[in-house]
């Protein structure tokens, strides 16, 4: 666990590279700063890449740009950590540059079935009504985006953390074409070692569904954290410790 490893982090929808600040601080404290480098990536239009005309960027273009960012930073043998929607991008990054990555770590990541958009993975039923669908805990047609994110993602955050997410929600929009993509492939995965971090209290995808995604993403290892969807904010030290252990394998 003591060796220096480079990490790159990719946020999910409604988030930016800022998502990982607490986690990177925890890595720093746990290792006395000797963990290598940490690069918090931004999907075009998010984080420190606001105001770009990104509507036409599909997931392949997003993946290519992020690989360019990692190369520009000079990272090698990278542990690539993704959260939530990043599950749609990590497989494309590893398809384009398998040599660049030491391990992929999917934190409560979504992996839509081929033919589905990311939001269609929820299905159209209420949570619990149809065992073949994740289902919605509240009706997305009658609530605001904030209410939806609160019910799905910000379930165990402090009021201050929730407000931070809420304030930044609309300034971090993923490219529309990436959100609408349906052409997912997972057959190429498995050659880069992969870990899935299951968030046990996640209200967006229950643990059982996260395990379905982990299988789809060909993750050889599962690590569980007793937290909601935003474990990097609510349990940064538990996640940092898990990352250090996974990175050292």
């Amino acid at each position: 666990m003591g060796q220096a490893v480079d990490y790159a982090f990719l946020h999910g929808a409604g988030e930016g590279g800022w998502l990982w600040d607490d986690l990177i601080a925890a890595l720093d404290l746990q290792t006395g700063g000797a963990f290598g480098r940490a690069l918090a990536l931004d999907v075009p239009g998010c984080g420190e890449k606001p105001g770009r005309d990104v509507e036409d960027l599909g997931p392949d273009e997003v993946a290519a740009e992020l690989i360019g960012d990692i190369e520009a930073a000079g990272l090698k043998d990278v542990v690539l950590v993704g959260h939530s929607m990043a599950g749609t991008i990590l497989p494309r990054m590893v398809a384009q540059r398998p040599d660049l990555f030491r391990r992929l770590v999917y934190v409560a990541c979504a992996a839509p079935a081929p033919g589905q958009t990311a939001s269609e993975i929820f299905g159209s039923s209420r949570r619990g009504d149809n065992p073949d669908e994740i289902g919605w805990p509240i009706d997305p047609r009658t609530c605001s985006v904030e209410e939806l994110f609160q019910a799905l993602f910000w379930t165990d955050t402090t009021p201050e953390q929730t407000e931070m997410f809420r304030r930044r929600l609309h300034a971090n929009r993923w490219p529309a074409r990436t959100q609408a993509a349906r052409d997912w492939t997972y057959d190429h995965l498995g050659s880069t070692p992969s870990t899935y971090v299951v968030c046990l209290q996640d209200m967006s995808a229950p643990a059982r569904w996260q395990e379905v995604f982990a299988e789809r993403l060909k993750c050889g290892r599962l690590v569980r954290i007793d937290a909601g969807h935003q474990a990097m904010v609510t349990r940064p030290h538990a996640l940092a410790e898990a990352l250090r252990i996974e990175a050292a394998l």
Partner: protein
Amino acid sequence: MSGHDYAFLHGGGQGGWVWDETIEALGLQTGGAFGRALRLDVPGCGTKRGRATEAIGVDDIAAELIADIEAAGLRDVVLVGHSQAGSILPKMAGARPDLFRRLVYVSCSSPLPGQTAIQMIGAGVHGENPDEVGWPVDPKTHSMEERYLVMFCNDMSRLQTAAFMAKLGHDAWPMQSYSHTDWSYDHLGAVPASFVVCLRDGILPVAWQETFAERFRCERLVRVDAGHQVMNTRPHALAEILRHEAAI
């Protein structure tokens, strides 16, 4: 989240030393500003090895540990116990409820009233008898060392396992701890309590941990993806949990 005093009580066959990694993690996470951490030792264990403990009963252990906490000057203490410490924490909280801010039971066990610790575990394997915790492997065909490997080291690397096994064999609880039957839990609930469930525990199955959590009147359950020795294998996850529970 910081500033609280912690007292830590080890389990059977171990000593205060078992908390070193977790206390170091608490220090790193808080920049050293977490208050004080006192590693308690049951007579015969850790810094109290070599004591004549034949005459020491379970109530004597609890009284001595309270005196240790008072002598150290700790107040509003978060009392953290592991494994067999579950048989002592209720007695400590019963004797001095004013001393404790919160009890945290880390994969702790304790017998039913009228039962010994030996009877609680039983002689079979996990699941064989629904009223006994059981052993992970058959005690009739596996040596104690083989059982320790499965009970304590199932989520440790080879290096961690060797280092941990080398620390065992030097700490022994007073024999009366294993014949005592006068347990009571009705008084619990006055001091807030949390139970840390170790999801990959090799000795106490998760369902049994939840049974014990209920016995200890724990109103909060926190789960951690680790074996029985979470304080050694996931010290940062445990330290973070303790900071959260202490701040409630």
